[in-house]
């Protein structure tokens, strides 16, 4: 098998699994391998069973080796490639996912299923993700095309560029990404982009640091226009929108819903409260079966 960064993953039974990031943790549980997970990376919070598992610090090769894993799941969204390289050098099987779009998320689901020895489950998960994504994209088809950015950090302004799963979310909600193309996946850009006349929508993960940054921004003279509601900001649940795991379609659904509601002129421009606009509830979580 070849993982999503092109490295070979030797086959073999998997009895002990280490998942190094929240997205691959969710993936492991979603393909039915939750019972094999012996440790997770620090920020694992879903599914609930994962929160009770021991944590392993990022970069701590010794701790990972001490766990005697048969397989380590890693992601390009947050794991240090040098650690991955070192684990491979030590003879540990590592499978890395690189989800830069919904299509690759679907492929990652299949890959995860194969690699843990549950190809049928993986295939089923892949199809579910595919269908949910297609349905959400279909709902967005009639929406007017607007220009948007996906903000990862306010100050300095860091946005998601084309070629990321954030960008794919924007496109599938009929939003054109104004971020520059050839400057890396998450480039730092001129804050004047926020004043660009073409910019109609800003999408951001709903997280305390980002809420605080936004509050500071709108309090300053530079952010006056933003405070008045132009462009409008859509806050998405951070644990869905910032994580390229199997629940990503829920984030897409939330974004589309928010746009639809916005178009319906319901006047919901509530950017200050924690409830925000279009928070998809955790009902959308997948229960491991």
């Amino acid at each position, binding site marked *: 098998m070849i993982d999503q960064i092109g490295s070979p993953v030797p086959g073999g039974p998997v009895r002990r699994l280490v998942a190094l990031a929240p997205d691959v943790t969710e993936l492991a549980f979603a393909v039915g391998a939750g019972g094999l997970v012996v440790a997770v990376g620090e920020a694992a919070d879903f599914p609930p069973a994962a929160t009770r598992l021991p944590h392993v610090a990022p*970069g701590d090769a*010794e*701790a990972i080796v001490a*766990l005697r894993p048969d397989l380590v799941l890693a992601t390009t969204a947050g794991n240090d490639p040098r650690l991955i390289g*070192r684990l491979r050098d030590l003879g540990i099987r590592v499978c890395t996912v690189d989800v830069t779009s919904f299509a690759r998320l679907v492929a990652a689901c299949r890959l995860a299923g194969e690699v843990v020895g549950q190809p049928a489950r993986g295939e089923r998960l892949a199809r579910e993700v595919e269908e949910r994504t297609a349905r959400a994209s279909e709902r967005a088809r009639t929406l007017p095309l607007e220009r948007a950015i996906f903000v990862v950090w306010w100050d300095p302004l860091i946005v998601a560029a084309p070629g990321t799963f954030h960008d794919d979310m924007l496109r599938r909600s009929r939003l054109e990404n104004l971020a520059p193309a050839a400057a890396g*996946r998450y480039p730092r850009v001129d804050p004047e982009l926020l004043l660009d006349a073409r910019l109609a929508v800003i999408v951001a993960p709903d997280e305390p640091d980002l809420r605080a940054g936004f509050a500071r921004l709108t309090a300053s003279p530079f952010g006056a226009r933003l405070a008045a509601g132009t462009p409008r900001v859509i806050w998405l649940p951070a644990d869905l929108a910032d994580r390229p795991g199997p629940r990503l379609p829920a984030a897409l659904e939330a974004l589309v819903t928010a746009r639809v509601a916005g178009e319906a002129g319901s006047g919901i421009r509530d950017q200050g409260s924690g409830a925000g606009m279009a928070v998809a509830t955790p009902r959308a979580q997948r229960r491991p079966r």
Partner: protein
Amino acid sequence: MRRAADAGLVVVLLSAVAASLLFAGPAASPGEALAALAGGGPPEVRTIVFDLRLPRLALALVVGASLALAGAALQALLSNPLADPFLLGISGGGAAAATAAYVVLPAAALGLVPAAAMAGAALATGLVWWLARGPLGPSGTRMILAGVAVNAAASAAILTMLALAPSPRLPGVIAVTMGSLASANPGQVAWLTPYILVPGFVLLLHGRDLGLLATGEESAAALGVEVATVRRRVFLAAAALCGGAVAFAGVIGFVGLVTPHVCRLLWGQSTRRLLPRAALAGAALTALGDLVARRALAPAELPVGVVTALLGVPFFVALLRRAP
């Protein structure tokens, strides 16, 4: 007193080796690690001890010895207690090239970063030599000034790379600029160890000459030192040692500066006697510094260059205050 110091050095070195293998982390207890060293123990502990801890220790020893030896030699060569490869811009040049490689190269080619570091160190060395040349060849003072200039240029380059680095590459860039032994692997050690033998030998060979040069080039020439030849050889050897260190461990400052001074306090001024002991002391100090880097804020790991800086700065201040 010197005999006692020699014995003390051996004890410190052996303690550093033992501590780095036995007490480096919770994943393998000292008892388990000892069992693994003796040939037994579960396979994962053997992996931890032999594939993770041992290469890292070996790299720390080799890098520490290289930096301390180069520092001691440069201090004598330039008659300047503040000389060290870090201050002469050699580390900076290597780090700038390594950082640029980290930011620019595609993931598959990241194995070339050490080569870039060595090329950068070599380039910085050439630049310092060229800037420092005067009618009688490069002089000690001019070399230091040239080093300051090259360091400034390297810092500017590094800051630029930091600003442009995509976030997944940032940890690697930080490891280079702040020094880190975390990526040690047996291949690196196997390459670096024979590499340092030649420049190391050149420095040891010129130990006596360096002692004479410490009182000035004129005195040294009058006492039989071929000043121009020795200056060139020592500078190149020190630069080679430093380039190797930066290539695999990033910028670890202050080891080259502080170790020779500590050694002088214990063993006196004779540079010939000092050089081999400085190398061993540098090895021990770097290994201990790396241990502190791993354990002080566990499970987070500090870059070892941070630890050496934190320990080195008060020492540096004390040195300045003592100066006549």
